[in-house]
C-alpha cells in the first residue's frame, strides 16, 4: 500500500529531519509513529501526502511512485487520503458543516448526499449537534473533532493523523481512537503520529519509533491483539 524506500529529508538550514527511513505499510494496517518532539514524525506524514518532497528516497503508494507525480496530478493522490493536522487547519469563516463538507464538494457529490455524509461523520465524533456553529465558537477539543470528521467524511483509503488527540482529555482521546479503529475496520489504512505513550500502549498494533529522524525500533504486536 505505502512503501517508503530510504527516505531522507534535509531542510534548507542543513538539518536532517529524516535519515534513511524504510517502511512498508500494508492495506488495512493501523500504524503509530512515535518519538519525542523533533524526531521527524510530522515531516514523514507531510512527505506521504506530498506536501513536501524528500531529499532522497522513493515512495510508492498503490503502485505509483508519488514523487514522479506532476504537480497538477497531486489532487488525485490527496483524494485517496484523509488528513488530520496538529493545527486543525479549519476555515474559521465557515460553519462546521461547510468545513466538513469541503472535501465532498471537491469530489462533486450532490448536496443531498453531502448533507447525509457530513451528518454521519459529525455523529461519529459526537459533534452533530454543533453542525451549524462556527469553529471559533467551539473548544479546542471540538475543533480537533471537526478536523477528524473532515478527514473521514469521504471514507479515504488512507488516513493520516498528526497528534489527533493532543488537545483532548484522556476519555475523549480514547473515544477518538475508537473512531479511528472503527474506520480502520472498514478497510482504511491508518497512520497516526503521537507521543502519547498511554494511548499507544492501549491502541497500538504496529509502532514505529523515531529519534532524531532515524528509525530506532519497530514493534508489531501479535495479530490476536489486533
Amino acid at each position, binding site marked *: 500500500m505505502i512503501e517508503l524506500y530510504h527516505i531522507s529529508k534535509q531542510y534548507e538550514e542543513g538539518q536532517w529531519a529524516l535519515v534513511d527511513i524504510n517502511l512498508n505499510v500494508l492495506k488495512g494496517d493501523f500504524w503509530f509513529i512515535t518519538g519525542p518532539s523533533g524526531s521527524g514524525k510530522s515531516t514523514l506524514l507531510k512527505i506521504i501526502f506530498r506536501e513536501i518532497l524528500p531529499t532522497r528516497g522513493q515512495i510508492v503508494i498503490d503502485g505509483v511512485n508519488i514523487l514522479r507525480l506532476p504537480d497538477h496530478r497531486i489532487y488525485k493522490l490527496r483524494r485517496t487520503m484523509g488528513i488530520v493536522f496538529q493545527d486543525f487547519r479549519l*476555515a474559521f469563516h465557515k460553519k462546521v458543516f461547510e468545513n466538513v463538507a469541503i472535501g465532498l464538494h471537491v469530489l462533486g457529490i450532490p448536496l443531498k448526499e453531502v448533507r447525509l455524509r457530513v451528518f454521519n461523520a459529525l455523529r461519529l465524533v459526537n459533534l452533530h449537534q454543533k453542525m451549524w456553529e462556527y469553529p471559533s465558537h467551539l473548544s479546542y477539543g471540538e475543533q480537533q473533532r471537526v478536523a477528524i470528521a*473532515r478527514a473521514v467524511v469521504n471514507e479515504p483509503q488512507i488516513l493520516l493523523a498528526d497528534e489527533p488527540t493532543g488537545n483532548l482529555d484522556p476519555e475523549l482521546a480514547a473515544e477518538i481512537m475508537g473512531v479511528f479503529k472503527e474506520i480502520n475496520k472498514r478497510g482504511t489504512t491508518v497512520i497516526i503520529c503521537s507521543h502519547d505513550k498511554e494511548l499507544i500502549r492501549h491502541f497500538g498494533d504496529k509502532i514505529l519509533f523515531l529519534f532524531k529522524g532515524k528509525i530506532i525500533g519497530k514493534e508489531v504486536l501479535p495479530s490476536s491483539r489486533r
Partner: protein
Amino acid sequence: MYFLRDAQNNLWQYRGRNALSVTIICLSFLILGVFISLSNNLRHVADEMSDSMVVVFFLAPNVTAADLSTIEQKIRASPSVVRVEYVDRQQALERFRKNFPDLREILANLGTNPFPPSFEATLQPGSFRSDDILGFIEEVKNVTGVEDVQFNRDWVLKLQSLSRLARAVGFFLGGILILASFFIISNVIRLNVFARKSEIEILRLVGATNTFIRLPFLLEGVTLGILGSLLSLGLLFVLIKFFPLYLGHSLGALQDIVGFRYLSSSQAVSLIAAGAFMGALGSMSSLSRFLKI
C-alpha cells in the same frame, strides 16, 4: 453548483471592498460611455447633414429671367445634383419667419425684405466629399447673377472629425480608467485570495483541482466587471434622459448636438462584455501571481 454558491457567499462577505471596485469600474465605463454617446451624436448630425447636403446659390436681387435660366441649366448639368429648387425672396422671408419666430420683430423693424432669391441644389449623398464639386460650384459662381454661395462641406467634415476625436478621447480616457479598474479588480481579488488563504490550503489538501480553486475567484471578478458596466449603462441612461432637460432651451440649435443619443445595443453589449472580460483578466492576473498551486 458549489462554485456559484461559493462566489456568491464571498461577494457578500467582502461586500465593502467589492462595492468599491464596482463603483470604480462603473465610473470608468461611464466616462467611456459618455464619449461614445457624444461621438454617436456628432456622427448622427454629420450624417444627417451629409445625406441632404445642399449648395445654396444666392442671386442678385435684380437677376434677369435669362440669367436665371442660364444658372439653372448650369446647375442641372452637374451629375452630382439630384434636385434643384428656386426660392424667391418672399419664400425665403416666410421660411425665416417660420424657423426663427423670435426674430420676427427685427424683420418688421427693417421694413424691407433682406433675403435674396436663391437656387438650392441638393447633392447626391456622399458626393460632397469629391473635389469635383468645388470646381462645379466655382463654375456656377462665375455666372452673371450669382452673388454668393453657401456650402456646409467644411462643417460636415469638421463634425465628422470631431466625432472621431470624441471617440478617440473616450477610448483614451476610458482606456486609462479601465486599466485602473483592471488593477483594482486584480487587487480586490488578491485581497480575497489572502483572506481565504486557509480555505485554499484546505482545498488543496482535500484534493481540489486548480480549476476548482480558481473558478470562484474568476466568477467573482467577472461578476464585479459585469455589475460595474451594467451600473454605468444605467447611469448613462439617466444622464442622457435628464441632462438636456437640465440645460433647457438655452442651447438653441446646439441642443441637437448635446441631446445625447444612447448607445446602440451592440455598443452596450460590447461594454458589458468588456466589463466581464476585464473582470476575468483582473482575477486571472491576481490568481496566477498570488495563487501558486
